[in-house]
């Protein structure tokens, strides 16, 4: 590991700022349809877990005062999630989970996962730094690596 000092850190910021034009294309689609500034917390029972491309989905029944509201939660892709500690059987139908999500701006009960607390208490994000192996949760806000790079 090379030593890094103040200069290196400023250099990083500088290069990030000036290299934005070289950003690659977005992974699958823009995430602008989700309201990432106003996350909501959903606690409910999993009715489906789809380990698929281009995205993984969790279907969740959330009890409310008057009945149950159903939510669809979008995650990254299997590739992105595997590098953040997920597997195809991390979640099972019937599991009780708590998810922090960014809801759709149009008010429909669809959302993008930020982080989730599993039935066994583990917390996972929606992707992490690439190539660093399993077990690295995304920072609060999640989905850093699955969002568009520009």
């Amino acid at each position, binding site marked *: 590991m090379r030593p890094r000092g103040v200069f290196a850190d400023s250099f990083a910021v500088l290069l990030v700022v000036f290299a934005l034009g*070289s950003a690659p294309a977005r992974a699958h689609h823009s995430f602008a349809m989700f309201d990432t500034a106003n996350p909501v917390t959903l606690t409910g029972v999993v009715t489906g877990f789809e380990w698929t491309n281009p995205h993984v*989905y969790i279907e969740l029944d959330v009890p409310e005062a008057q009945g149950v509201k159903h939510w669809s939660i979008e995650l990254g892709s299997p590739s992105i999630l595997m590098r953040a500690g997920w597997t195809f059987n991390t979640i099972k139908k019937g599991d009780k989970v708590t998810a922090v999500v960014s809801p759709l701006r149009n008010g429909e009960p669809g959302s993008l996962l930020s982080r989730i607390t599993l039935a066994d208490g583990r917390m996972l994000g929606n992707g992490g730094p*690439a190539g660093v192996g399993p077990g690295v949760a995304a920072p609060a806000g999640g989905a850093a690596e699955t969002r568009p790079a520009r």
Partner: protein
Amino acid sequence: MIVAARALVIIALGAMTAHTTAHAQTGQRPDLTGAWVPLGGGRGLDPTLAPPPAGPIVLKPEYAPAFEAKRAADAEATRRGEPPPSDAVLCLPYGMPRMMAVASYPVEFLETPGQITIVTEAFSEVRRVFLDQPQLPIDEVPPGYYGHSVGRWMGDTLVIDTVGIKESVPGYNGMPHSAEMRITERLRLVAPDVLHNQITIEDPGVLAKPVVYTLAYRRLPGYKMVEFICENNREYVDEKGRVRMRLGQ
């Protein structure tokens, strides 16, 4: 302030160039076989090994206004939370050159006699680079997503020439392109496990001058590429042209 910032950029770039040169290999061909991950979405995380800033897209005057207008409209729609559709929303692959860095999806290089095959994890795209062959005339290449690629080693650098990209394949950063587009890639290790791919796009039909940008990758030893079949695409484009998410049960 601006002058000071520019001076700092020049100093920074000078330091980077010196460092990169120090990492240059000894002229031998490196073994690229294996998986590589775009560093920071291709921008580079380690500043000392980051690629130089991308050059601008300078279109011929007759194409520039429409390009700028579309960029502005797309940015405004995204700000409204109504992102415009892209081919990827329809599960279409990226094609060249965008496929070479899609978010943090790895890219695999496979070297076999006479050919280097490049497989991307996102959308499982495959390019075949034929080594030490002459390039075909552009008008003899059936237009496609990957075109026709030939490559040759020049010292420690793999130079790949690609022509024949279909005009409907979205261009780099949304730029338009014509049947005359030519993509030249120069791949070179700047550290034992850090690869740079300098991409030059020439298009006398559309561009006023070539576009040059550099992608960076880090080697992923032992990584097993993951399949990517776009089987469960819940995004769709509604009647107003907005991207929507289909809800499940």
